[in-house]
């Protein structure tokens, strides 16, 4: 009964080779988030979508892009991955109301060789 699904679970890419991570949800939530979590660090918000409205965090590198073609799917594109982009990428959703919890996927562990 997975509600937020991330694929793939593990992704290996080469330095500079574009990579796309995907997230889908069956909750029909309005908001979808992408977080980056490096080892032993707090998850860091990269951006979020409210419906089709894209909101980028000020310190998110230009190398990171996102697409949300419909309510259910959201993609994270890393145009030219560097070694420093190796991390766990977490997708989360929420309905978009005040004071509500986030629903997380299992994450995609990205390695950059």
């Amino acid at each position, binding site marked *: 009964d997975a509600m*937020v699904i*991330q694929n793939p679970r593990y992704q290996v890419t080469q330095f500079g080779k574009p990579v796309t991570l995907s997230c889908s949800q069956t909750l029909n939530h309005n*908001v979808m*988030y992408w977080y980056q979590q490096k080892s*032993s*660090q*707090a*998850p860091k*918000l990269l951006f*979020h979508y*409210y419906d089709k409205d894209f*909101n980028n965090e000020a310190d998110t590198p230009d190398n990171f892009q996102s697409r949300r073609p419909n309510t259910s799917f959201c993609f994270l594109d890393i145009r030219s991955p560097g070694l420093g982009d190796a991390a*766990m990428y*977490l997708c*989360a959703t*929420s309905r*978009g109301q*005040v*004071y509500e*919890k*986030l*629903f*997380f*996927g*299992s*994450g995609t*562990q990205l390695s950059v060789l």
Partner: protein
Amino acid sequence: SQELEQSPQSLIVQEGKNLTINCTSSKTLYGLYWYKQKYGEGLIFLMMLQKGGEEKSHEKITAKLDEKKQQSSLHITASQPSHAGIYLCGAHSGTYKYIFGTGTRLKVLA
């Protein structure tokens, strides 16, 4: 900007022991969340606290938010190996913006 600091960073306890994890915010909290993360996986929601002095319990886990709404604690009674993982506190830092603490890694020895 708001920051969440957790202590301790890591904790190793013997099965059956009680433990407490703390979360301190640099600003007043409007909605404090506790999540658990198994190693290499996503976050699972545990509890949400909103009101100063609020306390919630689920099974053997109790979370409290202080009256000033700047500190929260998570208490586990009679810990079990299944409690092992990373516990993160989270809070709203703006509209559709959540921040998290760096987490507390808990290991429970059988």
